[in-house]
């Protein structure tokens, strides 16, 4: 009678001991990841981390560790809301482990200590990170330190509605040669406005629909500044080129004056714009490579290549044809335990493998991050990613990673909008921008 209970308690004790020893080895980690600008085509920004977690768990199992990773995903469709939420969360020490944002955030966020350098946690010399395009990795760096791993690349082309180009006199051969002509500077911004006007005069598009640019603030507008000869940064200092900025502002003021762009274009509902460019209501417009996915998947433009031709942003007076790459980057936020951050870094590394990253590139029509990715059949078999990579990526610039660039950007945009809508004359807008930049940034910006 006495042996049984003793045996029983011994068994229970052994079971408890055994279970605790298992628990001692088991590691349960929750990694949260937030991504800005994430629509239905961009889900792999978050899902890739989940895929990576599966892989890391298997690797840990082989090493005899019981690692369980739960990935908490949070997409934000708008940028303003996302940046507000992230910065305030980070200040309140409740930031996610991984954040997917524009590379231009690296400078202010690293300076204020919201993010930590990813190079402290991963080996940049090992695959797949050693295969990432060197220029993209440079864009993901600040002060010579690699803070982020590029999550995608993209470019921002100019789109032309083919049937209207034909209707104003372009032959198929002319259209085929258009990308090269733009690249060589033979087709310029002046030609673009002329063609847009022709489309309207012929009644192909309604007034104000000849040139139908982005409807809100965005990196696109720096391409126009580059087109007109502007430089954003030189030797670590921001640059405000008055003549180039005047030509940029003047271009949009002229487009409005000629009636090819609407004065009230900025601020129109995004959905309306998408529907209009997808159905041939607009003649020429600019956008990102990822627009392809939206136009084809959500807006019903089935024969994209039959209807649309894309090129670099043409050269304007004093500048060159260009495009802008605006990679989103995986960043690690501060304020988490070393172990968690290290796991987060490992997940980012695995998510950057060519086949996993290609899922995002193809689904969202962004561009790949490494040479190896362009050799993945799944990626190279896709006409859009292949052509866009070849035509645009070699000519891509990027915005500077400078902690004061956001201030410059706000001032530039505010005055562009004012001159576009006629609230200010072009010269007054440039003058106001100059005086505000001087009073705000002082000698941190070169004005010339």
């Amino acid at each position, binding site marked *: 009678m006495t042996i049984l209970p003793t045996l029983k308690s011994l068994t229970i004790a052994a079971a408890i001991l055994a279970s605790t020893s298992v628990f001692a080895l088991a590691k349960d980690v929750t990694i949260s990841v937030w991504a800005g600008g994430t629509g239905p085509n961009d889900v792999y920004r978050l899902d890739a981390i989940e895929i990576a977690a599966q892989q890391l768990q298997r690797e840990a199992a082989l090493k005899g560790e019981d690692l369980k990773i739960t990935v908490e995903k949070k997409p934000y469709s708008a*940028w*303003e809301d996302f*940046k*507000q939420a992230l*910065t305030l969360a980070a*200040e309140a020490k409740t930031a996610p482990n991984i954040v997917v*944002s*524009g590379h*231009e*955030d690296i*400078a*202010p966020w690293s*300076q*204020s*200590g*919201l993010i930590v350098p990813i*190079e402290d*946690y991963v*080996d*940049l*010399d*090992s695959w797949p990170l050693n295969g990432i395009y060197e220029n993209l990795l440079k864009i993901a760096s600040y*002060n*010579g330190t690699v803070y982020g791993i590029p999550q995608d690349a993209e470019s921002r082309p100019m789109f032309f509605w083919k049937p209207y180009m034909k209707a104003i006199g372009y032959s198929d051969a002319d259209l085929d040669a258009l990308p090269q002509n733009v690249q060589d500077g033979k087709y310029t911004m002046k030609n673009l406005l002329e063609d847009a006007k022709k489309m309207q005069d012929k009644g192909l598009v*309604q*007034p104000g629909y000849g040139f139908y640019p982005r409807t*809100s*603030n*965005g990196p696109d507008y720096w391409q126009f500044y580059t087109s007109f000869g502007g430089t954003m940064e030189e*030797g*670590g*200092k921001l640059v405000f080129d008055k003549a180039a900025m005047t030509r940029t502002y003047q271009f949009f003021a002229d487009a409005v004056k000629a009636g090819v762009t*609407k*004065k*009230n274009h*900025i*601020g*129109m509902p995004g959905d*309306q714009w998408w529907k209009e460019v997808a159905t041939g209501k607009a003649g020429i417009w600019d956008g990102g490579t990822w627009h392809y996915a939206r136009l084809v998947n959500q807006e019903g433009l089935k024969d994209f290549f039959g209807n649309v031709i894309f090129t670099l942003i043409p050269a304007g007076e004093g500048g060159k044809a260009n495009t802008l790459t605006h990679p989103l980057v995986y960043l690690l936020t501060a304020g988490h335990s070393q172990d968690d951050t290290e796991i987060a870094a490992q997940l980012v590394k695995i998510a950057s493998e060519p086949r996993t990253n290609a899922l995002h590139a193809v689904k969202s029509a962004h561009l790949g991050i490494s040479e190896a990715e362009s050799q993945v059949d799944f990626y190279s078999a896709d006409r859009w990613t292949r052509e866009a990579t070849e035509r645009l990526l070699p000519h891509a610039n990027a915005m500077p990673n*400078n*902690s*004061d660039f*956001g*201030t410059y*950007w*706000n001032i530039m*945009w*505010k005055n562009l*909008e004012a*001159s*576009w*809508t*006629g*609230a*200010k004359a072009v010269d007054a807008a440039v003058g*106001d921008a100059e*005086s*505000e930049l001087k*009073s*705000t940034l002082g000698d941190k910006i070169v004005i010339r």
Partner: protein
Amino acid sequence: MKSSRTLGLVMIAPAAIMIVLFFLMPVVLTAVFSMTNMTTATGISGGVYQIAPNSLITLKSVMPEIAAELAEPRYTIDEAGLKAVESLGLAPAIAAELRAKHAGEVFATRREAERMIKDLAERPSTREVKQISEQFNRSVLNTRFDSKEQLFSSLDGLGFKLTPEQKETVAKTTYTGWTWTTDNFSRMTRSPDMARVLFNTVLYVALVLMLFNVGYALLLAIWTHYMPATPASIFRGIWLLPRITPVVIYVMLWKWLAWDSGFISILMGKFGYPPKNYLLDTAYNAWFFVVLINGFIGASMGMLVFSSAMQAIPKSQFYASEVDGASRWQQIRYIILPQMRWPILFVTCYQTLSLLASFNEILLATNGGPGNATEVWALSAYHTALRNYAGNLEYGLGAAMALVLVVIGVMLSLLYLRVFNYRTLVAKPLIED
């Protein structure tokens, strides 16, 4: 007596705490933030000292030689570092091989040093490589120091001969956090855009207040005063709808009405007019809609206050005036309006203050456009401090703008009290303390 006073203080304590926490503190904090240059880049919770290439650009113009020296990144395989590696508790072969093959070598970047470490026979893991390379870091470049003292001792340790003044300059240029400043206020006075935003605000408050919140509200109240009770209640109920409709839906309805694919465009299309975006077509249009959108919401409150005030006027006054043969206009002029001074003061004062601070309807309808034409002060402060595409949130400047609103609000309140002669409106109590 004394105990009742103590009891009174205890009773009022919760309210006092609430007032301090939720009413006074935000204003005090706004005032504090407004005297700083806080942005996303400086962070809110203090900064560190970091000798980074971007701060060296500034330092280069002040002390070029020291800046050049500080910029020198060095990873030196020296005895101190080797000893530190030995104490890390890694495989002993690592330190031994480093000492035998690499002692005395200098690497310009961490990546180069780490490549060498990765080539060791006993290949360390990535985490260990990072630990080892850190032991040989003989540069202050990109290192973050929590305090000035740490920065200075590190500079001393690396053999930099700097005078106290030079040290202070280095500290000043390499500080990443926010500093106290009055620049926000001078920026506001210098910026031509701020003057424009201020003008917009005055225009917005004046138009909505005069045309709708007081003017139209009074008209509605008088109108319904002379109506039979049931239609008057129905009428008032309908006018309350804009206020009780969720603001996002309410503004969306206006957008459907005024966008180029909206109701007005479709209607005008029947008469041969091409569709256009009536809401953002011109600055005048935008103002027209902004005033209407806010006015229709604001008018309802004035209407309710004025209606109930009119109900309080003794009916006998109206009967007597009718016996005397007074017209409706004379009743309004000599009976209603003189007795409405207090409600008008209240509505004007309250609505001025809420209009000064309100921007959500404008944010949703025009977002300050076209071309910042409808950007009012509160919206501009919000855009500056909390929401912009470039993500550089300027908390300090935004707080300074908000503080201006607080000051204007307080001044206007005092002005209203004086204009409406507050003392004669409030009768003195007959029984004094």
